[in-house]
């Protein structure tokens, strides 16, 4: 028997066995999943021409959406708009963008970002100086424990800037810039919001634990209070306080 014959025999066996299995597997489960998957609802998004930035992710990415009714919707193209605090969904094979109903969404995850990390956004209820009343906002989960850390990736208009002069009339348009707000979420779901974080600000947030925090920072050699990764490290340390 030549090598050629053996290869053909092997190829035939693999093909035939593969077919045998496919013919007898039931496709019901896939049908059920797709048939009874909750439908996304929202309104057609009409993009605005504005100066600056409004999207935390410029491009659409593969994401998972967890709805308030408990259903999970996998592999949809989504992106987060920080100006409107809204999740946008790109309808497959179209250019239609849908601003999904916030009331129906509990959480959404971007399956992989540029650093190959999963990003989780949750709808949390917040109350602080930045809002007159409690409000639900989509915030990115940075660290989850007894004390969790979230960041609200909002984009706000900084100030109106002159962009053109037409018929002696000055046309000003706002410039949108990131204005992220960080939230500690306590075990009882209460949130404490802050925009900037310095050592002193942290001590002010938890004055009763000031000495313990000082000690823990010293032990963990946590001197930096600048980047988000520093804040994540600090949250990890704070979780050591019961």
């Amino acid at each position, binding site marked *: 028997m030549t090598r050629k014959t053996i290869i053909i*025999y092997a190829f035939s*066996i693999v093909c035939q*066995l593969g077919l045998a299995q496919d013919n007898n*597997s039931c496709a019901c489960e896939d*049908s059920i999943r797709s048939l009874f998957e909750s439908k996304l*609802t929202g*309104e*057609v998004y009409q993009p605005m021409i504005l100066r600056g930035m409004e999207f935390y992710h410029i491009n659409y990415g593969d994401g998972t959406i967890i709805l308030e009714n408990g259903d999970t919707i996998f592999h949809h193209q989504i992106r987060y708009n920080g100006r409107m605090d809204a999740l946008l969904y790109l309808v497959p094979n179209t250019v239609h963008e849908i601003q999904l109903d916030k009331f129906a969404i509990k959480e959404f995850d971007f399956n992989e970002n540029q650093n190959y990390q999963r990003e989780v956004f949750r709808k949390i209820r917040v109350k602080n100086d930045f809002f007159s009343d409690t409000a639900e906002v989509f915030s990115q989960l940075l660290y989850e424990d007894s004390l969790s850390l979230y960041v609200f990736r909002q984009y706000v208009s900084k100030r109106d800037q002159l962009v053109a002069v037409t018929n002696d009339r000055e046309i000003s348009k706002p410039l949108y810039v990131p204005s992220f707000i960080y939230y500690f979420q306590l075990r009882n779901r209460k949130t404490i919001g802050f925009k900037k974080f310095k050592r002193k600000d942290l001590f002010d947030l938890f004055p009763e634990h000031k000495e313990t925090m000082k000690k823990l920072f010293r032990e963990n050699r946590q001197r930096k209070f600048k980047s988000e990764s520093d804040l994540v490290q600090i949250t990890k340390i704070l979780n050591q306080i019961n």
Partner: protein
Amino acid sequence: MKKVFLYNIVLILLLFNFIENAVGQIFKETAYSEKAYLHSDRLIYIAGEDLFYNFYLMNGSGKPDVRSRFAYLILRNEESRAISEICLNLKNNMASGSIYLPDTLTTGSYQIVAFTNFMRNKGEETFCTNEIFIINRFDKDLNKLKLNGVVNQQRTFVDSNLIANSVKASLLLTPEKTKYVQRQKIRVGIEGVNISSVAPISISVHEKVPISGMDFFAPLPRGNTSKDSSSFVHLDEQFDLQTFQNLLRKVSVSKKEESHCLYYVEANGVILQGIVLNSDNQQGIGNATVFLSTPDTIANLQFTKTDNFGVFRFLINHSYNGKSIFLRCMDYPKASIALDDKFSLKSTFKPSKYAMNPRLIPYILKCQNIVNIQKTYQIKLSKEVSNQVASNKIPSRVYPPKANTIYPSDYVELPNFFEVSREIIQSLKIRNKHDMYMANMLNEKTHEFFDSPPLIFLDGVPIENIGQIITLGSDKIKKIETVSSERYIGGMYFKGILAVFSKNMEINNVHWETPHRLIQPITPNPVTIYYRPGFLNADVDYQHKPDFSQLLHWEVLTLQANEKKYIEFSASDDIGEFDIEANGILSDGTPVSAKAAIKIVPN
């Protein structure tokens, strides 16, 4: 040389076609399947009593994975007419409860059929069936009765193959005493012998039938006398069932070729299945849109497209429990909607042929008298423990809760909706052209009216056009909600939404132009348990009432390996011999059973 290669290839293909079939058969046999088991508390009942049951579902291949969470029970008579149709919500693959046997039932054999939606794929021969005997309370001249009845000799479970293998594992029942006085507390130990896995065990304590098993009745010669009756059909649904069954038969043939199931596993809710038919040729219409909604204070909508055969399916979750459902086909005005009736069985019930054994007559007469006494003193042995399954599911809302809301009662009374829209709904424009009313919603973003009509709801249900509500005056309207933007709902776009909520459910008076159906969905039955008031429950009223209950106890419990449990109950005023029966199924499918006897004597 090339020819030899070709011959070889052809030979191999033929050989592996054979292997494919063989392997395919193996896969088919090991594919997911379900097996239902049912245990009832007794074999003979008097009309007016409760029948207690325990339903248990297992994976057909003995694996722990069971996907269905809903099952169905049908109690039917000798004419195969359904007496009771029940939907069960399974918890830990099990459901127990009771069926009330109406007083008007005629004496004869009855059959309990238990199955899941998924089991319907393999035919009704895979359903679990139990034969029982029910005697009417007022049939006193029992000698004259030529009964078509009863009963499985082996009172465990239906699967006789498993029964044959059940010798290894067993149960042991150990009553503390063999003799008790009336109303005395009774304690019985139950333990598994060689039981290695968790087992749901049904325990029944009932008055002993003087003659056991098949000896209840003398056999009659079998003839062709049994009626070739068709399965029970609701008259108003006869058309549906016939056409649906014929069509499904065709579909099932085609579907088998595609390795699809026709009846899906019901894991998250009951599946409502139907077919959209072309009224002219009775063929299924593919790609038709079917709307489902329920009259509610929230505008709600589910929709789906029919497949190539015209079949559609909806998942009916707990949010629809107890509500009526509107089904409507939008695209084809001449179509009709036929629905699948899960309780419609094709097979007929062929009861065993036996004549009454005279030795049984005194026992039956005693049972009838006891039921009469129990009825007089309103002693009922079943008790509802929960109404419905709690759920966080809400009907599929189509727009955010904070819609623009208008209350017509805040304004002067207006005679019709044309005037209502003109005077108080700024974002809606209605035009009348040749007695045809057209509505358009304002787009709040462009400040122009949309070019096509909005999606209009009345009492939470989408209607066809504004003309259907044009006669509604403001006195009949509770509130109006509007959404002035282009809405997206799972692949469909709507140019605004208008939702009108009436004071007196005007949706029931709407004249429809497109095919629609108003149905009551199948909802799981409330859970009932066996409950007999007694001194164990410290019921004061009970002390002053006679209690001749012949069913002293009914309970479903689980036994771990080498575990011993105790059950406690009290004797009633009824005296005589009582059987304690335990029947169960181990998680590997092995049936186990045990029996013990006690005697109740007068005080």
